[in-house]
């Protein structure tokens, strides 16, 4: 069974069609890139999958389960986590607490344990903190543990967003332009990082990215969107020589 299946999903904003009739299937363990020019509807696809803007038409299925009608927090609890194109960390909270907050659904204690500081509360909090610290270690953020997230340099904020997404224990990770604003050496590190977390956490990853070096090196398969529709699918090599893709990016006549 595919991990994620988007069946003919469309999203309209008023009369404007942002995405139309998209079909997308992700098998477990795949790393797929979603590319396309600005305004092609890539982030809208993420928003439909995570339930921020549910599809106007069509269905999204996770492991065969229809996600229609679920709130975003429920979708996340079922195993889909994401990062944001425009970083959305909790700026005034510490780096550690940014990660621990994402573990709220799996906290393992109730309100009265928290209010009365029961033994169960103590044990569960220690476990959460250890897991969060392990994720920070993994993302090379241990030194920043107690600093407010907003004070981190850009590249570290991007890594913290990934750490926070991983803290929700996802099966599917959606990365929205993780390399935006990074210099080439940071992009190189990010590439290794994404590969290693995919392997170690057994993740399926769908990636939106404009940095072609990253996409071409990382993804097994690419889906190209333009004006809300899929114009090409295939391996990076196939996409690089696809006339319609070149046209979408560079304009008509570029291939002539």
């Amino acid at each position: 069974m595919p991990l994620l299946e988007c069946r003919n999903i469309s999203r309209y904003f008023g009369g404007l069609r942002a995405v139309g009739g998209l079909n997308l299937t992700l098998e477990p363990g795949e790393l797929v890139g979603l590319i396309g020019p600005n305004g092609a509807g890539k982030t809208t696809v993420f928003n439909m999958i995570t339930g921020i803007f549910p599809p106007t038409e069509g269905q999204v299925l996770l492991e065969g389960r229809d996600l229609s009608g679920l709130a975003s927090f429920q979708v996340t609890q079922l195993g889909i986590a994401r990062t944001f194109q425009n970083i959305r960390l909790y700026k005034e909270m510490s780096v550690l607490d940014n990660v621990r907050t994402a573990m709220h659904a799996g906290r393992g204690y109730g309100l009265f344990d928290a209010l009365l500081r029961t033994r169960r509360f103590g044990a569960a909090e220690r476990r959460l903190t250890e897991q969060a610290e392990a994720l920070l270690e993994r993302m090379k953020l241990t030194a920043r543990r107690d600093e407010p997230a907003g004070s981190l340099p850009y590249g570290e904020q991007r890594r913290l967003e990934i750490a926070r997404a991983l803290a929700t224990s996802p099966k599917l990770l959606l990365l929205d332009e993780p390399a935006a604003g990074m210099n080439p050496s940071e992009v190189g590190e990010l590439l290794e990082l994404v590969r290693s977390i995919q392997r170690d956490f057994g993740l399926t990853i769908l990636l939106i990215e404009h940095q072609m070096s990253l996409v071409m090196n990382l993804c097994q398969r690419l889906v190209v969107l333009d004006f809300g529709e899929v114009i090409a699918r295939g391996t990076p090599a196939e996409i690089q020589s696809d006339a319609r893709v070149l046209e979408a990016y560079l304009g008509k006549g570029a291939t002539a």
Partner: protein
Amino acid sequence: MRARSFAIAGAILGLYGLLELLRQTGIISAYWAQIMDLSLIITISAVGLSLIYGFTGQFSLGHAAFYGVGAYTAGFVSKTLGAGAPGFVLALVAGAVAAGLVALLIGLPILRLRSDYLGIATLGFGVIIRVLLDNSHKLSPTLGGAKGMMGVPQLASFVWIFWLAVGAIWLAANLIRSSYGRACISIREDEVAADLMGVNTTALKTLAFVVGGALAGLAGALYAHRYPFLHPSTFDYLKSLDVLLVVVLGGLGSLTGTVVTAIGWVFLLEWLRAVLPSEYMDLRGVVYALVLIVLMIARPQGLLGGSSAKGGKRRATA
């Protein structure tokens, strides 16, 4: 960690002993004892709003309405049952529960609103409660309506007020320093992100609103048993502003700030009453408005606001 808890408990016990001694011996006059009690009652209420606004970021202009619901409910229960410790305890519980229930009922529909709109909705709620209290004699003559309510047994002694204030602060601090508290703060920081990180934002906003409202209700219940005359004007929206000022001045997201400011605020107002000549008494409002303006310019993050201050600090490093 454990040693520290014991040290804090010991310090609080010592403080209580000292204050009780000073009161019993008359070194703290009955007048100032009354002010001290009021400062603790306001603290309980302000801690409630701190949870709602300071930590969860839900802007509320109707906090005094929960305080009023608690006071009138407790007063009614106590007057009906008569003087006695069991009736008093029941009245306190009833005051807190009634306010919490009202918070739940009002919170479910309005907490989906964001900031300014939520402020206006809570303001409207405060006006509704004020009008209901003004007309409460139609429901039961015991409640007194616009003439006010008298005859509630004055059972809230210092021992009750002090330890309930300590208990309220303890529970609030425990809540904040748990996964629930972190989830609440994440809603304040970025509600969309919180939702996408698996936090049921509606449930947590409602939780903060209910706990915060119940604390205001408890404070109101104590007030009803400490000050012999209850009047609807004590619970109108201007009083909501007072509590809001305390929470903002203390620093959003700082429980210590809220507690210190609540106590300081009540004493400041009384001190002004003592030092200002009677013909200038009306200037009291001007003085505390000035304090507010100066503080907001000098420390926009509040007295004890977080380390990542939006104003001063960033400007200093730039």
